[in-house]
């Protein structure tokens, strides 16, 4: 019974994904963007929510995955799944390489170094004009059918289903990882690195593994974005992307996977609606939203129901 209950959120999520597919047939491009962003924010939830590693440079892995998938499609093969693997591998390699340095640092130093990694990669992509198209962006990505069966169609039905399937694969993999010894150790390191070190846990190495897995998932998200939009621009490395993704995570609630999903959904929908009404003051609204959540709901919107319950329960 308990086993079954733990699948309620997933069932709801599947129902939501299917329902959205039929309810908004003309907004599939936007819905696909939301799904890709969910995968990206899940990668941050893994390292930040679970492992307690605060960075502002996750876009480094997202962008690398996007460029890797784009280059792979142009020069090697237009098979989407192989391209996804290429993006994932590229994200993992960048995370591992930068992680060797980053995971030794903490606090402001870690934040600054993670921002620097993304900035340096952006600059490299900007300079390697022959490969990446520089500031004009990388064009000419043409994807083949998925598994040789399903072609990407004009209104984006295939793309949406493809991304939703990848989202669920990532989500279930992360649920498994969270319950694994590595996941439990990561939680311990989040709570107190010193104590984990005292009981013999290899803190640095575990943080590095976690960061690398997070990088692989961010690489998947970037690869999906490149394949769906068939364009990669320098924006994939932008600081704003990293910062907004962290904001979305905190909005929903860090460390619980579903918080990432909820946060992205709310942020992107509010953004979509507010930006169509008034593109400038949207930024004010998001700033206010962040402040309110940080001040009044530090555990994110997922903690709103229990908080209300306590409030009502306490009044009795």
């Amino acid at each position, binding site marked *: 019974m308990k086993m079954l209950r733990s699948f309620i959120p997933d069932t709801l999520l599947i129902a939501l994904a299917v329902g959205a597919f039929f309810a908004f047939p003309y907004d599939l491009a936007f819905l696909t963007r939301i799904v890709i962003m969910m995968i990206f924010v899940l990668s941050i939830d893994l390292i930040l929510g679970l492992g307690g590693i605060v960075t*502002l440079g996750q876009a480094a892995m997202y962008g690398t995955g996007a460029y890797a998938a784009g280059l792979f499609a142009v020069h090697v093969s237009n098979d989407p799944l192989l391209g996804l693997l290429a993006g994932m591998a590229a994200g993992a390699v960048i995370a591992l390489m930068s992680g060797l340095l980053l995971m030794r640092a903490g606090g402001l130093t870690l934040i600054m170094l993670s921002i*620097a990694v993304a900035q340096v990669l952006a600059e490299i992509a900007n300079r390697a004009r022959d490969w990446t198209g520089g500031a004009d962006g990388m064009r000419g990505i043409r994807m083949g059918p998925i598994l040789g069966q399903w072609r990407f169609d004009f209104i984006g039905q295939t793309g949406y289903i493809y991304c939703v399937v990848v989202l669920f694969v990532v989500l279930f993999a992360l649920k498994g990882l969270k319950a694994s010894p590595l996941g439990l150790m990561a939680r311990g390191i989040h709570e107190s690195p010193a104590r984990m070190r005292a009981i013999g846990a290899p803190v640095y190495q575990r943080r590095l593994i976690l960061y690398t897995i997070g990088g692989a998932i961010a690489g998947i998200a970037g690869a999906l974005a490149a394949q769906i939009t068939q364009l990669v621009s320098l924006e994939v490395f932008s600081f704003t992307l990293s910062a907004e993704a962290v904001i979305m995570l905190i909005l929903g609630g860090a460390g619980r996977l579903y918080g990432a999903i909820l946060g992205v959904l709310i942020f992107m929908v509010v953004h979509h609606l507010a930006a169509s009404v008034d593109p400038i003051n949207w930024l004010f609204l998001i700033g206010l939203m962040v402040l309110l959540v940080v001040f009044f709901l530090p555990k994110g919107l997922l903690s709103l129901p229990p908080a209300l319950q306590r409030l009502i329960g306490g009044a009795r």
Partner: protein
Amino acid sequence: MTTLLSILVDGIAYGMILFMISVGLSVTMGLMRVINLAHGGFALIGGALAHALVTHGVNYWAGMGLAVLGTMLIALPMERGLYARIYRMGELQQVLATIGIAFMIIATVNYTLGSTLLPIPTPEGLRGSLDLGFRTLPYHRVAVIVAGLLVTLFLYLLIERTRFGIRLRAAVDHRATAATLGINTGRIFALTFMLGAGLAALGGILGAELLPIEAYYPLRYMVLFLVVVAVGGMGSITGSFVAALGLGTLDTASRYLAPEYGTIVFFVTMAVLLTLRPQGLLGKGRA
């Protein structure tokens, strides 16, 4: 030789601007242990106020003074209302809350003045060049360097020679002990924050030719200011000074000599420095 001199003059002027804007950030970070990503917002507020005043016919110098004062008056209620609560939060919450504040400042400036460049017309006296015989120096650069040196002198006297400075240093070293000795740390925080915001505004106005004022200023240059603080070491004024001048000169030099790789050189240098000294050049040993 001429190139070398140009690099030095431009680099030092640029470094002085970075120092003026970052020093408040460094001190507030060292003092309150808050990672403030909205600090560039005060430079923007100062620059925007100066733009509004000077384009409406106020004298440049008077406009600058009023803008700095105005920024400090805006900073005070923000410190008391928002930041005083942010100090107690965790690292991640601080980062997010201050990004939120930066967004709100950007949106407000964007709403009132638009998203175009906000130039601050420089007065006649700053436009020409100083003729040294073998080469000329733009007055503006000279003024920036002199202002930077004056600010450094002022801060040195304030921190080393006044009662406020003694209390400030005590609070930076150990806040709880300072509080038990009867130092009103809350007031020190507020005054320091105001001072930092005022200096950021001054740097923003004087540096408008190098770092143009526009609504997205706080985000565009946020990383730059934070790098100075991280490299210099949080809470260290001397560290900020050394880091700002060093990074300013390095950045200018790489722009002159290897413009292709400017950004990469800048960030790689920062990464190497932070790897060797995670607490910054002159950091206090705890982040």
